[in-house]
């Protein structure tokens, strides 16, 4: 059984007003008694606590810059928590930015292996899914062409097919998407729903409130790094749209 426990999670970013300090400045500052504070701290996520258990379909909503994506990245271990603790049981599939590890000079097939390795697939798994990924993306003709010559649609189709080729226990989605033409969109949506159905836990960030209401059974509302509401989708989304914290 998968589960996620987040206790008092805080993530701090240091914003440099000027630029990162050079070696010279670092040593110069070592001997100064009063060091100028060239940066300020920004808490992207502050004191967030929640627990997600098997079967939960969680949607995270909030305005831009509320810390939603930072929270997801912390769950996927991209950002280390500055404070607090995250415990995850189960395998997480990071579907944050599809195609992140693609190399433009590599062919489609080489990218399946490169990006697949980055996504954590083993070589045997990749050998097994290679053909299926190519077929699903509809790229049989161009699979041995460097991806820099791909159209945007071809690129996203390949990235999507690869990223969704395996069924993770915990599915983490940042803005569900489906690129490509209408035919691919339909196929991709079906696959996405299948993936969500089979996942033990699903967590997604989305600004599409209808989607959140239809896919999730629980909604977290983030505001300025804090978790301000947690509850059933209908209620929380209504309150969020009405723009008030106290129902």
């Amino acid at each position, binding site marked *: 059984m998968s589960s996620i426990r987040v206790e008092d999670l805080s993530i701090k970013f240091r914003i440099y007003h000027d630029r990162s300090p050079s070696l010279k400045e670092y040593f110069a500052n070592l001997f100064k008694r009063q060091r100028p504070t060239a940066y300020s701290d920004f808490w992207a996520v502050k004191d967030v606590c929640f627990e997600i258990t098997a079967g939960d379909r969680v949607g995270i909503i909030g305005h831009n810059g509320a810390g939603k994506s930072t929270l997801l990245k912390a769950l996927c271990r*991209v950002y280390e928590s500055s404070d607090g603790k995250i415990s995850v049981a189960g*395998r*997480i599939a990071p579907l944050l930015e599809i195609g992140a*590890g693609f190399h433009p000079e590599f062919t489609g097939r080489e990218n399946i292996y490169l990006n697949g*390795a980055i996504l*954590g697939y*083993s070589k045997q798994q990749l050998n097994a899914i290679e053909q299926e990924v190519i077929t699903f993306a509809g790229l049989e003709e161009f699979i041995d062409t460097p991806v820099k010559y791909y159209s945007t649609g071809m690129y996203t189709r390949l990235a999507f097919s690869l990223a969704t080729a395996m069924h993770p226990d915990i599915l983490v989605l940042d803005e569900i998407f489906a690129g490509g033409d209408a035919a691919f969109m339909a196929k991709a949506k079906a696959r996405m729903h299948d993936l969500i159905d089979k996942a033990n836990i699903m967590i997604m960030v989305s600004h599409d409130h209808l989607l959140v209401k239809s896919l999730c059974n629980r909604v977290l509302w983030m505001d300025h790094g804090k978790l301000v509401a947690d509850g059933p989708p209908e209620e929380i989304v209504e309150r969020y749209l009405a723009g008030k914290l106290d129902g």
Partner: protein
Amino acid sequence: MIKADDRSFFGELYNSRNVLQQLVAQQLILRYRRTALGYLWTLINPLLMMSVMAVVFSALFKADLKTFTVFLFAGMIPWNFFNSVVTQSGSSFINNEGLIKKIYLPKIVFPLSVAVALVIDSVLSFLALFAIIILIGGSLSWAVLFTPIAYLLLFLFALGISLIVSITTVFFRDLQHVILIAMQGLFFLTPILYQHDALVGRVGWVVGLNPVVPFIELFRAPLYMATLPSAGVIMHATVLACLAMAVGLVVFRRHEKKIVFRL
């Protein structure tokens, strides 16, 4: 997918061997994609460089060209490897910024993949040059069998330093430029073009402190002198390699989690 069961440093590294392999392949393949000679450039480049140096410096030092070529080659092979690892590892995180900010990977795979790709390059150019040395009438002895051990020690030493350099460069970007200059200076303070005891006087003692010297000796003894390196040199190199790795790992593990915030 992230396996939750093994989160120890080396366990994670083992689980990421597939990524490591892909990153190494990426570096080896991409450099020469769409060039007519392809990977051969890795062999041609040091070959031509060393030939020019051999001709010029053997004339300058009034040494026998054949002997000097072997002498130079035995010193340049370890130096070239060490130099490229230290200078290239500095940008290993910066070049992979996009990836590091989007997906979790054990950070050590980035500098490690640079070092592994370079050691493969180095071994191949070593084999090519070795064949040429034999052809022009160099001597072959059983001591050559020591070179794998020499490579291992040099690899650990270079990797340890590259771990420190890679992390530090993220925090101080100036370091990339400082290192280029420092390595150029170090080249002349390392007995590669000249014999170990040739540099005397006011700067002679610097050569004694230079940590790269025993590693050059590790290669030069079997290839040029046709003997095994002395026990003292092997000990010296082993201690330096272990020390570099120990310090490198400590520095690396202490700071690896801050990298993502500073890229």
